[in-house]
C-alpha cells in the first residue's frame, strides 16, 4: 500500500480546506494515524497574538486561551514539525519586571507544546517599549533564518523600532540573505505586522514594508505569514501571498468595517468566538501551502 501523506489523510478525513471546530480535532485524534510521509512534505502551526497578561473587557477569560491552544495543538493527529508564534506573545506593560514575569509565564505555557520545535517572534507589545531588550533575554534574536525540508524561512522584526519599521540594516540583511538563495527556493517569511498597506490609517502596515516586498519580489515563490490584525486575512501583492492569522485573545474588526479599530465586543454566549490558529501543510515541491483555520471554540 502506498504511503499516505498527511494531506491525503486530511482529505480522507474530510477536513481539508475547512475551518476546524474543536470537536473535529477530537475526531481526528481518534482516527487512524497516517503512515510515514515523504520527507519533503511537512506541516507547521502558526499561533499569534496571545497577549499574555491582557486584562480587559474584550476577553474576560483571556488567561484560558493560551493553555487551550496548547491543548489543541497537542491533540492534533500528528505533531507539527514546528510551531511559530508570530508576535505579541505578551500584552505590553510599562514595568520591565512585569514584562519579564509575563514572558516567563508565557514561556512556561509554550514549553508544554509537545512538538519538535517552537519558534518565537516579537510583536510591538513585546518589544517596542524597550527595543526588544527583555524579549531577547527570553527568546533570543528578533530576526533570524532557518531551513526546513527545502523551504527557507525568514523571521523579520518590524516591531522593535517603535515606529513599526524594519530599518535599513534589516532590509540590507534580508537582501544579502536572499542573494545566497537559488531563485527557485521556496521562501516563507514570518512577520508580526503586515508588510503591505492593509489599512494604514489603522496602523496595519509597515512603514518601510514595501522595500522588503521589493527585495522579495525577485523570488518567484514567496509566502508571508503574519499576525497583528487578530483575524484571518489573505492578500496578494503580485505573486507574493500574505496570510494573517487569528488572535488567541480577542478579535479585531475587518479592515474599515467600523470607525475605529477597537476590539470586537466579548460575546458571553460564545466565549472564544473569532479566536484560533492555523496549521499550514507545506509541499515544497510546488511549492504549495494548504491552510487550515482551527477555532478555539465552536463558531456556531
Amino acid at each position, binding site marked *: 500500500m502506498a504511503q499516505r501523506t498527511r494531506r491525503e489523510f486530511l482529505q480522507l478525513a474530510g477536513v481539508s480546506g475547512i475551518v476546524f471546530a474543536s470537536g473535529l480535532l477530537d475526531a481526528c485524534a481518534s482516527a487512524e494515524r497516517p503512515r510515514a510521509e515523504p520527507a519533503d512534505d511537512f506541516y507547521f502551526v502558526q499561533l499569534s497574538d496571545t497577549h499574555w497578561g491582557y486584562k480587559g473587557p474584550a476577553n474576560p477569560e483571556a488567561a484560558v486561551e493560551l493553555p487551550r491552544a496548547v491543548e489543541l495543538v497537542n491533540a492534533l493527529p500528528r505533531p507539527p514539525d514546528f510551531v511559530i508564534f508570530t508576535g505579541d506573545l505578551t500584552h*505590553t*506593560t*510599562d514595568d520591565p519586571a512585569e514584562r519579564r514575569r509575563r514572558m516567563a509565564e508565557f514561556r512556561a505555557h509554550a514549553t508544554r507544546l509537545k512538538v519538535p520545535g517552537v519558534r518565537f517572534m516579537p510583536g510591538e507589545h513585546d518589544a*517596542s517599549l524597550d527595543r526588544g531588550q527583555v524579549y531577547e533575554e527570553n527568546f533570543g534574536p528578533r530576526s533570524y533564518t532557518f531551513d526546513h525540508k527545502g523551504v527557507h524561512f525568514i523571521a523579520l522584526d518590524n516591531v522593535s523600532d*517603535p*515606529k513599526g519599521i524594519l530599518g535599513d540594516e534589516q532590509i540590507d540583511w534580508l537582501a544579502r540573505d536572499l542573494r545566497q538563495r537559488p531563485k527557485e527556493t521556496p521562501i516563507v517569511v514570518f512577520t508580526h505586522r503586515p508588510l503591505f498597506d492593509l489599512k*494604514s*490609517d489603522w496602523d496595519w502596515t509597515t*512603514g518601510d514594508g514595501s522595500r522588503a516586498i521589493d527585495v522579495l519580489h525577485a523570488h518567484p515563490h514567496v509566502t508571508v505569514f503574519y499576525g497583528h490584525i487578530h483575524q484571518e486575512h489573505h492578500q496578494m501583492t503580485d505573486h507574493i501571498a500574505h496570510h494573517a492569522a487569528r488572535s488567541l485573545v480577542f478579535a479585531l474588526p475587518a479592515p474599515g468595517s467600523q470607525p475605529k479599530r477597537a476590539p470586537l465586543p466579548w460575546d458571553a454566549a460564545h466565549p472564544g468566538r473569532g479566536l484560533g490558529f492555523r496549521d499550514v501543510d507545506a509541499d515544497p515541491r510546488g511549492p504549495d501551502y494548504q491552510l487550515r483555520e482551527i477555532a478555539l471554540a465552536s463558531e456556531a
Partner: protein
Amino acid sequence: MSFVLLGLALLAAEPAPPERVVHLTARRFTYSPETIEVEEGVPVVLELTSLDRDHGFTVPELGLRIDVEPGKTARVRFVPEKAGTFLFHCDIFCGTGHEEMAGQIVVAKRKEAGGGS
C-alpha cells in the same frame, strides 16, 4: 479697455485665504482635540506638542506624518483639497492604550465667497 481687463484680472485673482493654525496636544493615549474641523482649500498649520513622551502623528490619506517630541513644537502644513473625514493616529508605539490614540480631521466643503441668500 485696459481698465476693464485689469478689473477682470483682479476678480479672477481671488486672494488666498489666510492660514489657519490649529494646536494639538498629544499624551498617552489621546490627542486633544480628537476632531479637527477645517475647510476645503483653506491652508492649515497643525502645531503639535507632547505632554509626556515621543508620539507620532500621521494622516495616511493626506500623506502627512511628523514626530511629536516633548519640549518641541512640531508643525505640519497642508491645504485640504477635498471634503471628507480623514483619520489620524499615533504611529510610535507608546504603551497599552496606543491602539486607541487616534482622531479625525473633518474637511468641510468650502463656503462660496460672497455667497448669500
